[in-house]
């Protein structure tokens, strides 16, 4: 069952090269629908909602300390759902854009393979391998189809993430190393070791650095805005929508067990401080940016900081809010990136100074954009609200001041998002807007409606998602 989620993307990424060019569209649609249906089938087969839903173990060789151990539980099910939906949507966007370069589809499928592996694999070495696999397709996507100074920017991105990942690998190897005879990399064993508080701290720090670069957390974020801006739109979507969820997911599965024992210094507190600084710092920068993609990059930086801070409180509301917000942030940021992409396609610019008055030219785009903007600013009854509320509640319970500072994100976010909306959609029509194409195709409507429904449905019924992870989160937190 679970292996299908990993195998099909891999097969597709290879098969698409053999298929004739006129089959690409058909094959991609088939693949995206198939992977979503497979996911639905997996979810339907869940018989008991207690931890974990499914476990599958594929042993390659008994000599290896590592095996392909796949686990689906309440924590991994949310990024897995997000990945299937977003990959399908991103593929459809490319089809709607009439992109017929087969290697793009293949790389996205390879990315899909790596992402599903990261979220499912409960073996530290396997996790690390999948983690690195995702870096390969995104590197090529950014380096080949990017814009501007794409080579140095992509190299910077690669070096940042790769050095971070190496720190994580060292921690995993150390954890494996200190196990008694017959140990392995499976999650059950790898954290089940005795170590000094200093060693525990260093191991946690190593894993944290690996995750922090991906999320990114303040101090590790320098690659982000440049990469999001220079990457092609689908690259930014993959990065912001799904790849940074790898880091957040890693905090749940691979970082939090280390906090079960004593650490030589209060790492939890330092991480939360960094996260809260990032929340405010990113939001303030977003106010004066003029490139729409950069605004979204800093907005994303600010939002994930709050999620990471909530997770690090190790509280029920923080964890549940974090999981919900992971999904919601993925949907909203990809939806917004799509709107920016459409604006760029139709009007030839994504700079605030060249835009304005799109609402009179293209009212549907303005309507979809408004709903997504409101979702991002966490208006009640949109999907951003319940998650953000839970995260702030967890911070409030942890420490009042951090909640107060992080809570200002509500104001900052409203400032930069409404400024963005006002400058893009309202006011006088700019020259570029007047000369642009004003229609939306059926496919574009279809994709945007899915995002809009996501904003509204999850805003009104957040319980749909929260109930998936409820028992697992309770289980995790009581064990700790």
């Amino acid at each position, binding site marked *: 069952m679970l292996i299908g989620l990993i195998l099909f993307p891999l097969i597709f990424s290879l098969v698409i090269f053999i298929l004739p060019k006129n089959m690409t569209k058909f094959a991609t649609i088939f693949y995206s629908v198939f992977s979503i249906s497979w996911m639905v089938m997996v979810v339907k087969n869940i018989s008991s909602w207690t931890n974990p839903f499914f476990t599958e173990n594929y042993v390659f060789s008994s000599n290896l300390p590592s095996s392909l151990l796949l686990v689906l539980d309440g924590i991994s099910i949310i990024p897995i759902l997000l990945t299937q939906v977003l990959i399908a949507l991103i593929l459809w966007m490319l089809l709607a854009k009439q992109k017929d370069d087969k290697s793009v589809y293949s790389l996205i499928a390879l990315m899909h393979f790596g992402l599903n592996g990261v979220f499912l694999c409960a073996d530290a070495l396997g996790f690390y391998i999948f983690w690195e696999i995702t870096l390969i397709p995104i590197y090529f996507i950014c380096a080949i189809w990017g814009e501007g100074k794409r080579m140095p920017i992509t190299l*910077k991105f690669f*070096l*940042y993430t790769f050095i971070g990942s190496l720190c994580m690998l060292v921690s995993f190897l150390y954890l494996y190393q200190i196990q008694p005879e017959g140990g392995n990399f499976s999650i059950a064993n790898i954290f089940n070791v005795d170590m000094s508080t200093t060693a525990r701290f260093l191991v946690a720090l190593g894993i944290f650095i690996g995750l922090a670069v991906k999320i990114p957390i303040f101090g590790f*974020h*320098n*690659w982000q*805005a440049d990469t999001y801006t220079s990457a092609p739109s689908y690259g930014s979507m993959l990065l912001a929508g799904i790849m940074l969820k790898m880091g957040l997911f890693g905090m749940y599965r691979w970082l939090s067990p280390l906090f079960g024992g004593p650490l030589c210094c209060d790492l939890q507190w330092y991480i939360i401080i960094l996260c809260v600084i990032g929340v405010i*710092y990113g939001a*303030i*920068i*977003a*106010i*004066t*940016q003029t490139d729409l993609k950069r605004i979204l990059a800093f907005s994303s930086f600010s939002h994930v900081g709050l999620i990471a801070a909530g997770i690090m409180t190790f509280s029920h509301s923080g964890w549940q809010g974090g999981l919900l917000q992971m999904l919601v942030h993925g949907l909203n940021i990809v939806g917004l990136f799509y709107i920016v992409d459409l604006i760029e396609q139709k009007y030839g610019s994504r700079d605030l100074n060249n835009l304005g008055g799109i609402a009179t030219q293209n009212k549907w785009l303005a309507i979809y954009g408004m709903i997504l903007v409101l979702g991002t600013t966490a208006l009640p009854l949109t999907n951003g609200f319940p998650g953000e509320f839970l995260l702030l509640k967890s911070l409030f319970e942890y420490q009042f001041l951090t909640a107060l500072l992080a809570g200002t994100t509500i104001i900052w976010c409203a400032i930069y998002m409404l400024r963005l909306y006002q400058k893009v959609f309202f006011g006088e029509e700019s020259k570029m807007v007047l000369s642009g194409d004003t229609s939306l195709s059926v496919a574009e409507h279809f994709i945007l409606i899915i995002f809009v429904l996501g904003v509204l449905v999850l805003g009104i019924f957040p319980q749909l998602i929260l109930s998936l992870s409820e028992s697992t989160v309770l289980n995790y937190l009581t064990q700790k």
Partner: protein
Amino acid sequence: MAIHAADVDMSDPVIIIATLCLFIGAIGKSAQIPLYTWLPDAMAGPTPVSALIHAATMVTAGIYLLVRAHFLFDLAPSVLNLVSYVGIATSIFAAIIALRQNDIKKVLAYSTVSQLGLMFVALGVGAYTTAMFHVTTHAFFKALLFLGAGSVIHALHGEQDIRNMGGLKNEIKSTYWIFLIGTLAICGIFPLSGMFSKDEILAVLFEKNKGLWALSLFSSLLTAVYMFRLLFLTFFGTYRGDEHTKSKIHESPMVMMAPLWVLAILSVFGGILNLPHLIGGESYGKMAHFLDPIFSHSKLTTEHMDAGLEIGLMALVVGLVVSIGFVLYNIYVKKESLPKPDMSLRGVEALVAKKFGVDELYDTVISKPVLGISRFFGQKVESAFDGISGFFFVTGFKSIGNSLRKIQNGNVEFYLIMMTGSIVALMILQFLVKI
């Protein structure tokens, strides 16, 4: 909840902070000092929107919040005092600004801020029912005034400056009557709805706090000044706009006037909702009776006041308002004096016309520094991060590569020394690790 709330210690800082935060929320929503500047600016919206949300309903949400949370505020008398101080300050401040505005909607906007201030004063002394009563009557006549202003603007094809109006009472009679009713209601002329609600506030204040009463009275008189000024400049005298517009002035269609008449009727008779006892009301007003179950726990409900005193206060207010009306009629209609152009204003007058420069102050104190910080972070700090990562990745790796390259020097002797040294080092290492 009220029962639980009674157990809370009055000096508990939590209750102070909680009520203070609720009050700050109400300040923002109901446009009180210092967060009132958005309301006059929001008048850029269409008039019906202003009438509905910026005058009648949404802005009173702050009042409603405090009324709903009265059981908490009862426990924090110091915050309640603050509520009335903020309310009275806003009321007078906004009324003064309204005196020198020439945009018909701006005058009404500042008038709304001022009236909301009066409601907060009433809340601050615990007169919750009274505040709710004024919310209701205010909704009637302020929506009426806004829609009336909309009808005027519609008739003049978008003209909003009262200096370009005048003499409209003969051109658009129906709108004139409506606006007159609204003006008399907000000024508190007997027996329109505004009189009952406003006099109730003043009566309560007279009992509880004479200082606040005097200031509120002053604010009410200012209301009469700016409203009569608006009325006279718009509808009396001679038309001051250009001929082209004048030839096209027309009364609004029935579909616009019908709701105005409904509101006019409500503005006239709205006072019935909470008639004071001395003019045939129930023991203490229908509305008070209706709201009684909610406030039964409140320790601050008002006692009944002496009928003679109440009539005296009413007569005083009405008398003052009427005399203000006559004085202004003399100034603006008989002498036809006009507001001076903004440029020629000096001193205090200029300051008032510029709304005391609060918008500019906020711009310098808040907007500009935030934008400055944003640019500083976005340019300076980010490029510092760039510099660090550049140093680490580029300079660091290059220098490591450069120094390691020197080892590869093609000298066999050097290679042999390195090899022997490494073997010895490895042996020592193994020896150490074994032990």
